């Protein structure tokens, strides 16, 4: 059962809802080790994305994801704008011209997006960034599909890996971004970027798989 254009829209809407719901939480996490704007900035950006989605004519998934990326780039600011913008732009390039995505095409698009984030931000796993949630999520979805798991199971494992990666940022000392200036003082705080990345993968598991199993 391939992933449809409207399911991708549902995923984006679910992510926007999760960001709005956790706006204060994300900003609180950011105020501990950053500059206290992650929830505010992401929420502003995702609201702009929703307005674009509502106005959008039906086209392919690549086009949809690129629209999301460009909107985030021009509305979020800070580091989150270019990083999340790049994630969606690269996913859009990977999904260009496709009206629906197979399981493997989803995994490939996600991998391309995450690779773009790594190139843009130059962060490695363990630097206490969104990469700590995203890289395990890509690996989990790929290995689940390789083992022959259904999409809903692969998405569930992907979200779980992101959650574990997010939690694993707590003891880390930041080596990228504004938190890195705190040195040892950045330990014992969960990274806000990894947290919003988990919300993104959890939204995927909730929307892309839910319909898939309903229709079965």
């Amino acid at each position: 059962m391939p992933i449809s254009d409207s399911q991708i829209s549902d995923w984006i809407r679910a992510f926007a809802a999760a960001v709005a719901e956790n706006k204060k939480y994300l900003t609180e996490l950011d105020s501990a080790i950053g500059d206290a704007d992650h929830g505010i900035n992401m929420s502003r950006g995702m609201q702009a994305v929703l307005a674009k989605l509502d106005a959008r004519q039906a086209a392919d998934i690549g086009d949809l994801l690129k629209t999301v990326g460009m909107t985030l780039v021009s509305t979020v600011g800070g580091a989150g704008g270019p990083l999340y913008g790049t994630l969606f732009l690269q996913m859009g390039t990977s999904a260009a011209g496709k009206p629906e995505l197979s399981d493997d095409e989803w995994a490939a698009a996600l991998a391309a997006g995450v690779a773009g984030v790594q190139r843009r931000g130059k962060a490695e796993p363990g630097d206490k960034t969104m990469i700590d949630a995203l890289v395990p999520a890509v690996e989990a979805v790929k290995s689940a599909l390789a083992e022959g798991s259904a999409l809903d199971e692969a998405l569930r494992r992907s979200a779980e890996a992101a959650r574990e990666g997010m939690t694993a940022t707590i003891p880390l000392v930041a080596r990228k971004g504004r938190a890195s200036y705190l040195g040892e003082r950045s330990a014992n705080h969960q990274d806000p970027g990894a947290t919003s990345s988990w919300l993104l993968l959890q939204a995927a598991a909730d929307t892309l798989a839910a319909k898939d199993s309903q229709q079965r």
Partner: protein
Amino acid sequence: MKKLINDPADVVKEGLQGIAAAHADRVRVMTDPNVIVRADAPVQGKVGLVSGGGSGHEPMHGGFVGMGMLDAACPGEVFTSPTPDQMLAATKAVDGGAGVLHIVKNYTGDVLNFEMAADLARDEKIEVEAVVIDDDVAVQDSLYTAGRRGVGTTVLAEKICGAAAEQRRSLAEVAGLCRKVNANGRSMGMALTSCIVPAAGNPTFELGPAEMEIGIGIHGEPGRERRQMAPAREVVEMLATPIVEDLPFRSGDRVLAFVNSMGGTPLIELYVLYNDLRKFLAARGIEPVRTLIGPYITSLEMQGCSITLLKLDEELTALWDAPVDTPGLRWGA
């Protein structure tokens, strides 16, 4: 929070409208996206200079748009990086056919957004170079962090590169000069009080009545250490010693000494600080042959100061002395 504003959400927009109205002879303000651009841009055959960053540091950068300095500035939300669409619009507006230099302060958000903007501009066949300023010696473990922050040297780089661009030097030359200024400039700041971001409404950090933060960043980022209040001459020692040791500045060096207010410190205190800095430098055989004293790179209403020293040679001195005509810096024009 006591501030002379209307709605906190409108501070950047209304500030820009004020700049447009007050300085229409020198700049025009584009909206959607927000860019402050030289009134006569693009200047044909001249390298265009674009900078930008979060708002709240005025006059940097918008106050430095004009003849002999920047061609455009991109203001973000308060303390938040501007976005690539602003930087692209600015780059296109100032491209006079000789390429565009992006002067970027080293903060993760600013660097990433300017990188994306440079990619977009190159897609549109505009030649772009970027130089990242990272002069804050307060950041010690720069190998294990996002690196040193860009602070006071940015103002000096914008002035000196602006003068070089007016002489119709090439993009490669102006970019090289910007790197030279960054390599020879060092800064450190301190705070007596916190700033208050309008949208947040409360102080960014807490500081006791008898405390000061040494090594503060221009967004209220923590510095090297928190200490008990001390006389100005001791504060100068605390800031200038790591600056001088870092480059290092040596006996016989001629420097530009820049004593900056973080926004809330009055000019008379800056002169008290400069008087102590002058003696500090004299004791080391360092000669301040040029000075800049005042609020030029601020952190909203924060009380405190920063010191920047730039080692000068004949080339940099001549470019510093060249005419400049901007809302925030003006001489010889």
